[in-house]
């Protein structure tokens, strides 16, 4: 086969503290990726399979934005242009349901901003009015803001007020609701943010797509580790269903996600992750420069 991916890092750029953008050589992912999909990466022969959203594509390459939060993502962020990544598989997951809904509110927090960029673009191209809210702790941690110039409206929220609204994306969201309720919402970021925005959407009865960052292994529906409990009321009866984030998602209507167990499951390997991190830091030394 002619297109066997090389997975070479073509370029790398620091976007914020411990947050990097990479363009990676992989024609198969580049040609087939749709907004909302992700890849699974292994950085080394002994590495874990970690899912990362596809943030953009070009002819033979795709773009990811990675935040270094633990062993594998730090190792990834320490790779440089010219190096090859061990394994990349993708695109995976169901693409976002892009359609003309009318007025769409798009909320991104942290590296979630990279994930919503292609979705927002596609929704704009589909004819929607696109309002975008981006959130970060402080202005220096805000990423990719310049790339949202196509949006009909761009709202920035920082926790410390260093830029835009002083507050979280939830504050921004409430202000937008005061102006006009959107027809549908996309919200991607840390789980507590997705939960909070989903709670509000539920109060207003507005559909809200969240992209769940469940812990995965294979990403092909084979292990069930990424499962999430979806709870819906239908005709007065509550129906619970187990869904697999990697193949049934990663996007779900946040109003129906059982956030409590979802957030708990993200903590499953806390002790082991800590151990792996400490061991890795002993090996590579200080990484505060990252």
């Amino acid at each position, binding site marked *: 086969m002619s297109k066997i991916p090389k997975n070479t890092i073509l370029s790398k750029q620091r976007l914020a503290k411990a947050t990097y953008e990479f363009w990676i050589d992989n024609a198969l992912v580049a040609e087939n990726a749709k907004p909302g999909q992700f890849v699974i990466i292994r950085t080394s022969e002994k590495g874990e399979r970690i899912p990362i959203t596809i943030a953009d594509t070009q002819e033979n390459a795709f773009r990811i934005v990675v935040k270094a939060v633990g062993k594998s993502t730090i190792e990834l962020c320490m790779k440089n242009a010219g190096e090859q990544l061990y394994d990349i598989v993708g695109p995976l997951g169901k693409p976002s349901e892009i359609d003309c809904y009318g007025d769409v509110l798009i909320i991104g927090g942290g590296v979630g901003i990279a994930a919503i960029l292609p979705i927002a673009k596609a929704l704009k191209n589909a004819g929607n009015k696109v309002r975008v809210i981006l959130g970060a702790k402080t202005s220096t941690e805000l990423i990719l803001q310049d790339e949202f110039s196509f949006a009909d409206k761009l709202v920035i929220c920082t926790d410390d007020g260093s830029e835009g609204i002083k507050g979280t994306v939830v504050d921004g969201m409430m202000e937008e609701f005061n102006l006009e309720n959107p027809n549908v919402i996309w919200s991607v970021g840390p789980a507590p943010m997705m939960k909070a925005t989903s709670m509000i959407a539920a109060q207003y009865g507005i559909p809200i797509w969240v992209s769940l960052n469940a812990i995965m292994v294979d990403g092909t529906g*084979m292990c069930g580790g990424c499962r999430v409990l979806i709870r819906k009321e239908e005709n007065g009866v509550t129906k619970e269903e187990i869904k697999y984030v990697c193949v049934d998602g990663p996007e779900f209507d946040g109003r129906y996600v059982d956030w409590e167990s979802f957030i708990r499951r993200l903590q499953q390997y806390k002790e*082991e992750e800590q151990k792996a991190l400490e061991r890795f830091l002993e090996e590579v030394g200080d990484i505060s420069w990252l």
Partner: protein
Amino acid sequence: MAVKDRVPVPELEPSVRKGNFLEVSQGYTFELAHQEAQRCLQCKVPTCVSGCPVGIDIPGFIKEIIKGNLKKSYEILKSYNYLPAICGRVCPQEVQCEGACVLNKIGKPINIGALERFVADFASQEGFEDEVGRLSFSEGISKELGNAPRKLTDLRSKKVAVVGSGPAGLTAASELGKLGVQVHVYEALHEFGGVLVYGIPEFRLPKEIVRREVLQLETLGVELIKNIPVGYAIHPKELLEKYDAVFIGVGAGTPKFMGIPGSELNGVYSANEFLTRVNLMKAYKFPEYDTPIKVGKRVVVVGGGNTAMDAARSALRLGAQVTVVYRRTEAEMPARRAEIHHAKEEGIEFLFLTNPVRYIGNETGKLVGVECIRMELGDPDESGRRRPVPVANSNFVIEADVVIEAIGTESNRFLLNQFPDLKTNKYGYIVTNEYGQTSIPKVFAGGDIVTGSATVILAMGAGKKAAEGIVKFLVY
């Protein structure tokens, strides 16, 4: 005069093997294999052969062991079975060839599995594995081409895509590769072998052996391409355009959950996840390898198949005290007898006629116990086995840090969702004719995705039959 007792296969002592993932069965030496082979009666009407899903000439390969002609013995094996080192280790011989051996009437059957494994391992040690592999054609295909040798040249210009590198896909690929067909095998994971690498543990099937038998495919000119999720990185439409035929062997794949309350608690695993973390991701070597696994002190495994035994014995090796709960009795357990025996030897506790009804968590959402109910056997169900029914008010709790559900799998929709034209049955498995041909004429399928979870040898048999079907399809 036939010797009643089998020559025992050397095994690691339970006390030694409990703490590691080394292969339990050490296999015969030539002397031992030779002794065991001599017990074979060389029956004129060998019942063992009729018990073998791929009809291996069993007395034939055993006779060559007796003669000391191991290369010939290997050639015979290999012409029926492309993965003898694997099948010798994992086939449920007691219900196949060995179960049908006439010696059952007077004593113990020939240890056909151990002999098969011995010959295959010997071939690899002596380095004649590849050479023989290239030349051993399956009977069906030889017949097909024997009538029309010219067609062999036609085949060399044909391209076939194989989706999935489990035993079904590997076998189809090898059969076609030997004929010079240009074969591309696509695998979604980062290793080839399907369940052989992610499911069956190292102590039962060393991954090195899978790798060895897989790499042999490359000597046939088959191209193996990993990390490709077909349906996503390559659209089915593209496959149909670029290839003259397609074989689908994507496995059954998706784990079922009992769906009882508490399934979302931390510490509740499917056997597939538990085993994938351990085998494919080498979590038993954490933190040298990055993927973690939770085991804790007490593990409960639910189920009675090979998967349950593999999960239980893996958890034991990771230091846990393990209890298997199974809703029927030992006699109904579908696992290979040898594995049940090994599990007991290693100190795994079995609670038969027991079924979990609820998982109990603590305030942080971590599993702390499994509430079970006793069962009794009622009237036979459609499978002919007596149906287990709960005994009222017999509930009790087993303390546990981890529970592993090994209650079976269902059709993996990963590819099929992208392939809506392909006809499936009501359980979601692909419908095929006897040659594996699907509702789309140039698409063939076989293995667990057609039959539902079965065995390695049946998946291989299906791969072989489909290769025959593909050859017919390509040359006529």
